[in-house]
């Protein structure tokens, strides 16, 4: 029980830390604002997980990461911040879903929790790996191809949306 709890608390902390570190080169006011707003949002999200606060905290973290990218903050730190924000959001909601004592044996509950942590680690680890590989292997692509790729992405999103609706 100690490890999941540590992970749950460490993720928002690391998310905030990455943002603060990313903005360190800037004015201290912005650093404090980014750190305080993200930290407070995640603290509130942990306190009231049944409300839209976890989503708000997640959006605030993503928004700060995106703003960091525009403000020439270190990309890797912003990516890490987003990764931890995603993990924090997932874990807050997961913890909340298990809070009303599901009908199951203790062994099944533990197995389910393990499966969830494993899936989350796999998803985010894989995502990070793709990002890191993508950033290491630099390929020069023209804007038109990027545009086409984006269109393909939109097309995929549309398909996913339809699949979800079905």
């Amino acid at each position, binding site marked *: 029980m100690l490890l999941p709890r540590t992970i749950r608390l460490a993720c928002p902390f690391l998310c905030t830390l990455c943002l603060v570190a990313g903005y360190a080169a800037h004015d201290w006011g912005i650093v404090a604002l980014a750190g305080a707003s993200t930290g407070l949002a995640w603290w509130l999200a942990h306190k009231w997980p049944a409300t839209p606060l976890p989503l708000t905290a997640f959006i605030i973290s993503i928004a700060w990461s995106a703003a960091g*990218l525009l403000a020439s903050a270190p*990309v890797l730190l912003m990516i890490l911040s987003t990764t931890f924000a995603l993990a924090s959001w997932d874990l807050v909601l997961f913890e909340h879903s298990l809070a009303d004592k599901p009908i199951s044996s203790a062994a099944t509950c533990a197995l389910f929790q393990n499966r969830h942590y494993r899936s989350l680690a796999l*998803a985010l680890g894989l995502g990070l790996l793709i990002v890191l590989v993508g950033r290491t292997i630099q390929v020069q692509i023209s804007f038109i191809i990027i545009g086409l790729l984006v269109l393909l992405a939109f097309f995929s*999103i549309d398909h996913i949306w339809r699949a979800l609706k079905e």
Partner: protein
Amino acid sequence: MNKALILLFIIFSLLLAALLTHNADFIWLALLCCAYLGMGFLQSPSTREIKLNATRSVEKDTTNALTTIEVSVEITNQGAALVQLVLSDPRQFGMSIKDGQTTQTALLQAGENAVFKYTFQSERGSFEWKTIRAKISDPFGLIETELELPAEAKIQVHPELNKFRPFSLRSQRTLHSAGSIPARRGGSGTDFWGVREYHPGDPLRRLDWRLTARHPHKFFTKEFEQEEIADIGLILDARQKTNLQIGEVSLFEHAARATASLAEMFLRQGNRVSLLVYQRQYASVFPGYGKLQLNRILHTLARIMPESDSSLNSLNFLPTRMFASHSLIVIISPLMSGDWQFFRRLRAYGYQVLLISPDLLAYARPLLSTDLDSQLATRLTRLERQIEINQITQLWIPVIDWQVNQPLAPLVRNALRPTRIRRER
């Protein structure tokens, strides 16, 4: 809000930001979200692989009002995968959950089973379940699949019975079976009725020896008033227009409870009782006796709900021919404008009628506003009701203007007391 949709929106926004700012780094952030979403999709359970079995059990088929009823559903995972389920039972009208929840999360390994339980109470009603809803999702809760698992059960909650103390009832016409109602005819009762000349076959213990002594060569027999049973029809008005719901209890519930209590008392006295519920599709219980008949009546009362329909604007459409002529008809109705004409018809057919009218205005008092307009409207409605009641009273029909917080038994006893009936006739 659906988690997957939120993620899709964020991915879309990041891609748009990358396109607008010509900054490819935004795509890396979007890619992370895509990886999370993709993993969710890959791990979402296929409906073909999920094999769940549900069995519902309820303690009894029928129960009395305000008894705690436990509903339990056993879910067995017959598939091979570990599943996370959100089980939910729709909360039916009239249910008051006492313990547990109607929505519960369950985690089931292959071959494992879990029991989903909750208890509820109800004033009255017929509760039926066909399925239980199970929502299955991937580990991240992104893709949710809803399944309806067959799990049938039903239970009827009979209305609460207030046991009325029996009272002597004078009916215009009785049925020729031994009962408790004096039939105004000589026979084998307990009250002295008269003396007549002896007929061969009369029991010797009934001979009036004094009169015989005074008249030599003649014998006289004492007669007692025959006690028979009455034919009683109950009519319950289930029009939504005459009903008012305050909190969890409605005026109709009081009327249904009164009907059940009257039926119980009349049947306990040995009378023949029938029931007709005035709603879109008439619910009726044909005349009968005893506990079985009481059960039939309670079953019918448990099922009915007030209904609104334009065809139910007046009591005039009520079929009265299911009641034997000259029988006693007890109508439980809060009354609507123009209903009095139906009572005229009943009297014309020769029925003996009693009207119990739950007072809608008195019941609605906590909801009524105190401003001048409302007071005026209330006064007008009260006058209209009073006129309606007066018109019915002029037909020699006893009317009980019943405020539902009053005990009904003394009012009915007073309205049906023999002297009153005799005077009215």
